[in-house]
């Protein structure tokens, strides 16, 4: 059994990036213990840039799918030999401790397979679905969708028994070689704005006409600006549709990077921009992690207090409904050029404007231009959940 610890994060890009604070907090709390990370194969190149992670283990979900699909519903003991070999290739000895960040059976089972002790959403083994105090809290908050002020990144810290980092961690990306035609991004004069055109789930994607109007408004503004469209290969058709809808005059100010970068390259590209704008998506969180100011449009199921961009000085427009009828286009474009006027912004019906802050309890978002009517209960929540966790540890 190794003395190293393993963090298990098997969800998507946004969740992986939002695990940076817990990595920082654990590294601070246990400075002499090496920390490894288990993440899905496609995210491993980015995880390789996390300086606090000693070793990245790649979870090959596609291979597990292939085993499971080999025979429709059937079972053959010989498959277990292949599974054994795959696990043996992943680790040579069990971890002493694994921190599981996802409340998904796969992540919990992975923890049980790779480590002798697991700390995560469940109090007991993989079949004991009794939730830990922090997992219970997150479930209740998800149901009530009310006054939660504990950010997901900070809740990850709570799950792992550590306090949030005192300052938001910044992801340092190596200067990756970008494709030749993207090499100038961020180096020419003017304001560079990256636009995250897509989203993992269709209902979280900002409609194409909205982007066309928003980019047109930005580029027709007096100040010189350039726009970089970012996203995965899957977002390329959206990017083309946006370009089709724009006036040909803006062509020299628009750069399409969708589907053309690796994740480390994307991080480097976002780092070069002055602003990154988009919905609650992985690239938006990646931008916040590399230290680029972010402006998010949160709607559908996205809630600023739970998954807002982590760090200081980010802006979020929060819709009061899943599918907004109007969008704060002019106000948000103006904000990019004149952030000092934020307090005078008129967000428009159905929207509120928030700014991110950070203190000893982690991330906090406060409304702009009005008093925060909601009491900040984070300290009380941390105290209550910490006491419950300690009491359970005593029992166990």
């Amino acid at each position: 059994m190794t003395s190293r610890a393993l963090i298990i994060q098997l969800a998507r890009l946004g969740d992986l990036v939002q695990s940076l604070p817990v990595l920082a907090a654990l590294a601070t709390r246990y400075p002499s213990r090496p920390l490894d990370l288990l993440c899905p194969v496609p995210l491993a190149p980015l995880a390789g840039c996390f300086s606090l992670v000693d070793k990245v283990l790649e979870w090959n979900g596609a291979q597990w799918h292939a085993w499971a699909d080999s025979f429709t519903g059937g079972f053959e003991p010989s498959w277990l030999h292949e599974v054994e070999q795959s696990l043996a290739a992943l680790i040579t000895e069990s971890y002493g401790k694994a921190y599981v960040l996802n409340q998904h059976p796969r992540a919990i089972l992975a923890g049980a397979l790779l480590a002798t002790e697991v700390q995560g959403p469940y109090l007991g083994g993989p079949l004991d679905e009794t939730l830990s105090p922090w997992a219970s809290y997150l479930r209740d908050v998800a149901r009530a969708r009310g006054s939660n002020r504990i950010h997901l990144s900070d809740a990850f810290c709570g799950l792992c028994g550590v306090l949030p980092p005192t300052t938001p961690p910044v992801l340092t990306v190596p200067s990756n070689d970008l494709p030749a035609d993207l090499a100038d991004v961020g180096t020419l004069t003017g304001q560079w704005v990256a636009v995250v055109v897509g989203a993992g789930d269709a209902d979280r994607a900002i409609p194409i006409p909205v982007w066309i109007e928003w980019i047109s408004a930005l580029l027709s503004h007096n100040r010189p600006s350039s726009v970089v469209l970012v996203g995965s290969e899957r977002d390329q058709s959206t990017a083309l549709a946006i370009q089709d809808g724009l006036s040909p005059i803006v062509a020299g100010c628009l750069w399409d990077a969708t589907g053309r970068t690796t994740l480390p390259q994307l991080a480097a590209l976002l780092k070069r921009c002055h602003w990154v704008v988009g919905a609650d998506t992985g690239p938006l969180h990646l931008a916040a992690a590399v230290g680029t100011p972010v402006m998010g449009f949160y709607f559908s199921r996205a809630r600023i207090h739970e998954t807002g961009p982590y760090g200081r000085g980010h802006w979020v427009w929060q819709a009061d409904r899943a599918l907004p009828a109007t969008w704060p286009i002019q106000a948000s474009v103006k904000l990019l050029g004149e952030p000092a006027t934020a307090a005078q912004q008129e967000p428009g019906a159905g929207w509120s404007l928030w700014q991110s802050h950070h203190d000893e309890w982690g991330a906090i978002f406060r409304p702009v231009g009005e008093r925060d009517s909601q009491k900040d209960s984070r300290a009380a929540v941390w105290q209550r959940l910490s006491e419950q966790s300690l009491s359970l540890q005593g029992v166990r």
Partner: protein
Amino acid sequence: MNFFETNISRLAQSNPMLAVALRQSGGGRLEIAPARNGIPSARANGRWIHSAYDPIKEAQAWAEGQDHQNGETIVVLGIGLLYHVEALCARLPRTATVVLVIPDLSVLADAASARVWDDSMDRVILAWGATEAITERIVSAGHPIRLVTYAPAAALHADGHRAVETALQRRVAAEAGGQLNIAVVGPIYGGSLPITGFVVRALESLGHRVRWLDHSVHATSYHQLELLKSPQHRLALQSKYAEMLSRITMAQLAEDPPDFVLALAQAPLILPMLEHLRRKRFLTAMWFVENYRHLTYWQQLAAGYDFWFVIQQEPCMTALKQAGAKIVHYLPMAADPSVHCPVELTKDEQEEYGSDVSFVGAGYANRRGIFPRLLNQEWSFKLWGNEWDGASDLISVLQRNGARIDTETCRKVFNASAVNLNLHSWAGAGFDPDADFVNPRTFELAACGAFQLTDRRSLMQDLFTAGEVASLSSPDELPGEISRWIREPERRVAMAESARRRVLAGHTYVHRMSDLLAKIGMASPDRIGSILRGARQAQALATAADGSFPAVASALRTFRPTQRVELNQLAAQIRSRGPLTTLSREDLMVLMLDEYRSETKDLV
């Protein structure tokens, strides 16, 4: 020493009886001729069996294209000069079992005379002799069996190979103890609808878990579309409707994924859906219980199904293959003896349903033209069935004003009639000029123990003898033949009884489904074949898990030994131990596999 002596002397060490037989048989079946590269090649009946340029390269290319799974016995059909057998052995692991079928010793003698065999031939089992002996030798080599055919050489012994294949399929069917999960997709309406029911019942009686995706519940809505006056609208909407039913089928399959999907003719499955099913690793089969000349939609679907079963032989089978079908088998119609059986009639029923001559069926053009000559004869004639509108000359014999006749009434008519006419439908005049397949009515009448007089069919002789079913080759013979048979009541009864025995012995839907599964099992030895052999039963799985995975073996032994166990059931067994149980590493791996399995297949 010449090539023949070299090869036979070596063979005699392992198989002295075959060596003796080869010395006695002599050769001469193949014409040995040098290929361009100088090594021997061969011709038979004027056609090259191996390449005229480079037989070894050609054999290697063939061997590369053959599938193989560990543990399978590879049975090679086609002898030639054995280049392909040597190439196959070179590609397979040394532990693989290879059997070469030898229906004709003279070809092997030619192969022995042409060149010296390489060492790999020492490990090839040569199965020779009568069909039974060859089959026994193959089976004794071990399961599962995978047949591979070197077509240029196999063509010389097509009948012998077919006999061996049939015998092997029978063995597979007889030994089948495993339970398959089968989804049967039926039509919205039509003649294949009752057949779907018979198929479902037959599969269930064979012990399989069958789910009937019954689209007849949509018939009323579908028929409403037929009322649309605009042909454009009607066809477009019917097409959309079929597509929607196809999607419904996909959703149903996704909820309970079967081992394979059996569709009956007219099942609403469109090609894109079938292709999607293939991508998702579903095996599909179609039993096309239609005349392929009349209903031609098979042309659009041929490539979509993994297996086609048809009621006609050539040229139907070749046409399907040319349209893209990969595997096509002949599977004739049948009867369900629980539905089609003799019935005791009361005097009143005999009065109502009885006649000297009867016909039950729809008013196709050929029948409309033939039946008037049966009127005003010395014997009585009753005509039953629908779609006789406009046949004014037949009104005097048409029963129930041409109402549709249900199965129960059919049985009574069959049993109450001295001579049941069974004229296959045909849109022209006279008898069907392409008279090949045998219709379901033939089997149903026979199963009812009823005497029948049919139009002559080319495929009849393999199914019934002239002593079981009477037939005639021209409508002109009909009145005379009827008179003759009416005068011979004892012979009629004897023939009807023989025909019924024949159906019970070999022509029920149970027989057909058993053959169908055996054919699919042979073609898919690692999937359907393994399930049929019982390899997925708890006892077999536990034995396989013993040693390496004791915890899994122990979990498997909590099931009934013959119960088929799937991954989700094993995972459920592990979960049932309760939340406080300590899980082994094997348990965790099984649970993880099941987590990935449980994702709903992205079918819809």
